[in-house]
């Protein structure tokens, strides 16, 4: 598949994905509750698209991403991966098949200090996936590693250096080169620029964007920084307490939020543009205790538009108009403020 035609078909289709962590206590490790980190989310990522998943800590965005890669086993849900050679049900793969399949999906992590082994040289870090998958060795391996280093803007003379010799931004480039080594089609970026200083952040974002176009990559981009998401993502899904509360094209979600949580999130983000700020919606309280979820809509205790219906039943993630979904009982009545 190529070009614009590819854009319209789904690469990844996730249906009703959930991950519950049992909470055990006491001598008998008795199960005392269930933390519903991700509680039934559905979304798709199209070929060549950048899907942003935004939400605050504890909203389940990282757990969702790990489930997609099956780095942790989901409790339920279906993950379908489509490419030229057909459809793969990722959730149904056995261990060996999963290992073979995983080269299609790679991950870039948040912390460029913790995610690189300090005792491995750059050539070993970037080359490891190639060796593990038996793709290259010897001379070929070295030239492929050099090529990857150049691709992410690292000087390939530093092949034999250890991670400590690099700055945070350069380390993140090493992590990116490692993720790209196996030529994946889907890359999950989990807060990939959050730990970087402002000037480094811009460099890495530009690099990711350029690689995405060059290599026709598809990204799932997890972030909490709304201005980064605004800049980088084609579509976004907003998560709150384990569920997607709203999704749609980035531009549209920012200018016309349909869920009160999105509205509050947008208004809480600090803004440097003098005089553009509208009145801030102050959210009281905090994200709910995962062991003690409020009944009905999880956001209703903090929502300024909450009514009786909100604590009675949980609103489904309905399609409001093509390509736009929101889970709010009063989506048709509310007129919310964007940016």
């Amino acid at each position, binding site marked *: 598949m190529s070009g614009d035609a590819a854009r319209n078909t789904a690469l990844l289709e996730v249906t009703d994905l959930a991950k519950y962590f049992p909470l055990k206590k006491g001598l008998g490790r008795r199960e005392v509750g269930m933390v519903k980190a991700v509680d039934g989310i559905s979304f798709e990522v199209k070929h060549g698209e950048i899907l942003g998943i935004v939400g605050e800590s504890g909203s389940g965005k990282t757990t969702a991403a790990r489930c997609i890669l099956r780095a942790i086993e989901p409790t339920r849900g279906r993950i379908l991966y489509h490419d030229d050679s057909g459809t793969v049900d990722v959730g149904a793969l056995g261990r060996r098949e999963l290992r073979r399949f995983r080269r299609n999906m790679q991950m870039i992590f948040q912390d460029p200090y913790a995610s690189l082994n300090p005792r491995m040289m750059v050539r070993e870090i970037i080359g490891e996936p190639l060796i593990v998958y038996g793709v290259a060795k010897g001379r070929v391996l070295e030239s492929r590693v050099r090529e990857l280093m150049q691709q992410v803007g690292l000087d390939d003379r530093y092949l034999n250096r250890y991670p400590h010799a690099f700055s945070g931004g350069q380390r993140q480039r090493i992590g990116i080169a490692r993720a790209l080594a196996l030529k994946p089609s889907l890359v999950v970026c989990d807060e990939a620029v959050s730990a970087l200083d*402002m000037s480094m952040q811009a460099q890495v974002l530009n690099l990711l964007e350029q690689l995405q176009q060059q290599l026709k990559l598809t990204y799932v981009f997890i972030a909490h920084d709304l201005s980064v998401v605004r800049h980088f993502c084609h579509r976004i899904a907003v998560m709150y307490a384990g569920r997607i509360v709203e999704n749609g094209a980035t531009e549209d979600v920012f200018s016309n939020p349909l869920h009160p949580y999105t509205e509050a*999130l947008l208004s809480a*983000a*600090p803004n440097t543009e003098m005089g553009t700020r509208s009145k*801030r919606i*102050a959210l009281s309280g905090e994200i709910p205790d995962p062991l003690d979820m409020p009944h009905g809509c999880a956001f209703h205790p903090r929502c300024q538009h909450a009514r009786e219906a909100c604590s009675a039943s949980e609103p489904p993630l309905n399609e409001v108009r093509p390509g736009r979904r929101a889970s709010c009982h009063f989506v048709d009545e509310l007129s919310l403020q964007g940016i």
Partner: protein
Amino acid sequence: MSANRLLDVTDLKVHFALDEGTVRAVDGVSFHVEEGEIVGVIGESGCGKSVTAQAIMRIVPQPGRIVSGKILLRGDGNGADDLAGLDDRGKRIRGIRGGTISMIFQEPMTSFSPVYTIGNQISEAARIHRGMDKRQARALTAEMLNKVGIPRPSERLDSYPFQLSGGMRQRAMIAMALCTNPRILIADEPTTALDVTIQAQILDLIRSLQQEMGMSVLLISHDLGVIAEMCHRVAVMYLGRIVESGTVQSVFERPSHPYTQALMNSMPKMSRRAGDLSVIRGSVPNPFERVSGCPFHPRCEHIMSGRCDQGRPPDRVLVGENHHAACLLHAPTEAREGGRT
């Protein structure tokens, strides 16, 4: 020293002598904080903003040392203390540290002791600095917890830090800092570890308490948005120096130092999608290498060779009302290198 300057820092230098060489973490910084004002210090990691705050509190970690400069704190009556000249373990600084000047830190989990209740830790400050007995201190602590918006304060007194969420811990930290009625609050990245909606709550809280108690705030942050929303004036730091300072309005609308300009252009905007983000080429140099001339010149787009790479640029060139930049671009052509305006 002008009448309403509460804190006046002049030519402060803090150096760290290490085996590999000397790191000039703060290399000649001058600024002041007026009464009832919120002053922001912004910069990337390693620019010296936190060390500046530590120097004011006299808690610069070993082997860091204040090598020169003055930190004048105006007293209640006449005269001023030079904090830079005090014994950092002496009685005087211990009365000021946590008393006249309080500080809140980025990570409220690591800045509270995990083995004492928050009530115990907050009331300790009240007992030491305000000479209260245990009962009075406890009552004050409950009042402060209430003031910072912690629900059921008299029960929360007996909670341990791990029993509170990040946002609540930061509120408790603010209660501890403010229970001594400080005249200056230093907030070092107070919301960096928090989520945006909680960050908005904490910033609102700091602002309303600042107005209520009439104190001054020195807010240190790497987040341009936080500074823009909170501060009256701002100083931009790069490699241990202030490269630009002025009112927030003026600095954000007309950034004049090439570093400030580049920083602002490299930041994605909330209201629109630009094309590629413009980047600052290269990276912050190795701290042991001493850059000659202007510290930013190797990365600067407007470098004038023969001028920017030699001699220290003038510290304060006036570029607008109360708005200064340390850059030769704005200096009158006849200005001498290293001259001060």
